[in-house]
């Protein structure tokens, strides 16, 4: 395994910055997220970020195109698009899995989302293995390996004083080649993964949900819910968006921005009708989508066990307990 002293990470990231636009997990003001790397910035090693790296590929607000009206005719104006290679350092297994989910949505089944694709294609990902699961983590229950993130270009391992690297893809190999002078070969065994506190049993749940659309369970589960969008906005897999425009006089910009199925106006129709008028329907949709519709369509859960939603939920809605309740429901 190629390793480097943790203390050398700064040099490594500086070296990578010469080739890539690098983003790293950073802690700030009691919260954490991926930020563009600047020399000297402290990289967060403990646990996962509060905000997932989803926005790197699917930003919360994304301009699509501009337009201009001149004397009753409309012209389109293309907007500058950021180019160049990017590198994401420190993506965890769960978030790696979420990119798999997003890839399914944005790149398969005959529809390609150019905005997503452009960003995805110019990004190399160095995943960082988890040794000690967080209190709200449950990726292992969903079949993920917390130490080796599937789909990453490079696997990095936290080995105490040192960091280990293994290239998985060709792009990953290029990254390590770049770091030749900073890495040395040394044998290391991966430390054992710690115990998970949350262990939902997800087997059979997607199938069981098929018959549970009218279950009284949803009403009960939904009672707590405030219908805020915190869970959906921190979720690495939620990918709903709304298209809107900002018009200033004769010019304007079309943009898309994250939307949340928890919001009342999410399914509001032009005529005022709302097929999901109360939180019962909204909560049901959220979990049906994650645990039934998505698996049916893409053959994978729309949940990666990152635990962010149960961490941020102000009223402690807990997907693991909901999975349990579904299992136990008659």
């Amino acid at each position, binding site marked *: 395994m190629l390793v480097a002293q943790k203390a050398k990470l700064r040099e490594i990231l500086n070296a990578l910055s010469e080739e890539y636009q690098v983003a790293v997990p950073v802690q700030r003001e009691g919260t954490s997220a991926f930020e563009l790397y600047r020399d000297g910035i402290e990289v967060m090693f403990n646990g996962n970020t509060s905000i997932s790296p989803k926005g790197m590929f699917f930003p919360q607000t994304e301009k699509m195109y501009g337009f*201009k009206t001149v004397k009753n005719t409309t012209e389109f104006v293309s*907007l500058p698009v950021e180019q160049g290679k990017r590198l994401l350092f420190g993506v965890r297994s769960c978030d790696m899995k979420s990119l798999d989910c997003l890839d399914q949505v944005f790149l398969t089944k005959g529809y390609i989302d150019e905005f997503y694709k452009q960003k995805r294609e110019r990004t190399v990902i160095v995943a960082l293995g988890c040794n000690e699961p967080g209190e709200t983590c449950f990726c292992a229950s969903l079949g993920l390996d917390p130490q080796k993130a599937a789909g990453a270009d490079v696997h990095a391992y936290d080995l105490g004083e040192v960091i280990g690297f293994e290239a998985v893809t060709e792009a990953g190999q290029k990254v390590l080649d770049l770091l030749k002078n900073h890495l040395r070969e040394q044998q290391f065994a991966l430390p054992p993964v710690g115990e998970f506190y949350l262990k939902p049993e997800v087997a059979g749940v997607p199938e069981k949900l098929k018959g549970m659309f009218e279950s009284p369970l949803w009403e009960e589960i939904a009672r707590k819910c405030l219908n805020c969008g915190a869970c959906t906005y921190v979720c690495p897999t939620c990918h709903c968006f709304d298209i809107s425009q*900002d018009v200033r006089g004769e010019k304007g*910009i079309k943009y898309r921005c994250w939307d949340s199925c928890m919001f009342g106006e999410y399914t509001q129709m032009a005529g005022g009708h709302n097929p999901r008028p109360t939180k019962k329907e909204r909560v049901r949709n959220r979990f049906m989508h994650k645990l039934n519709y998505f698996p049916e369509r893409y053959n994978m859960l729309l949940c990666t066990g990152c635990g962010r939603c149960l961490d941020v939920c102000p009223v402690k809605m807990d997907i693991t307990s909901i999975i349990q309740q579904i299992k136990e429901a008659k």
Partner: protein
Amino acid sequence: MSVNEVTWQPKILVFACNWCTYAGADLTGLSRLQYPATVRILRVPCSGRINPQFVLKAFQKGVDAVLVAGCHPGDCHYTTGNYFTRRRFLIMRRLMEYVGLEPERLQARWISAAEAPKFQQVITEISEQIRALGPNRKLRDEEWKI
């Protein structure tokens, strides 16, 4: 609107009530009292109609200063509208200052229909203050230019 340092001129939005300040501004014109061409007056029926959110929006969209103006207390055409204005903007001005807006950029004055010299003086004064402060960038939503 983007800020061009060279050609920049202060852009001051005045919310004026129809009965006192707007009429006062009319009288300023009738009296040919000159003031800088930095202000644009937006007519509302009563200063009580001025929603503090209008002020926020104006700063977002790019004005350099806002003047909220209406009848003197006791003179409101609608009896009490300006008393509500007073309460709302006592809070609003302090809040804006608290988040970092320079106090000169949001001002409130009572200007009656007869106070043309006062209107002239207030506008001149604010224009000078804003010219000294330079363009406002705070709260501004500049993302949407093409």
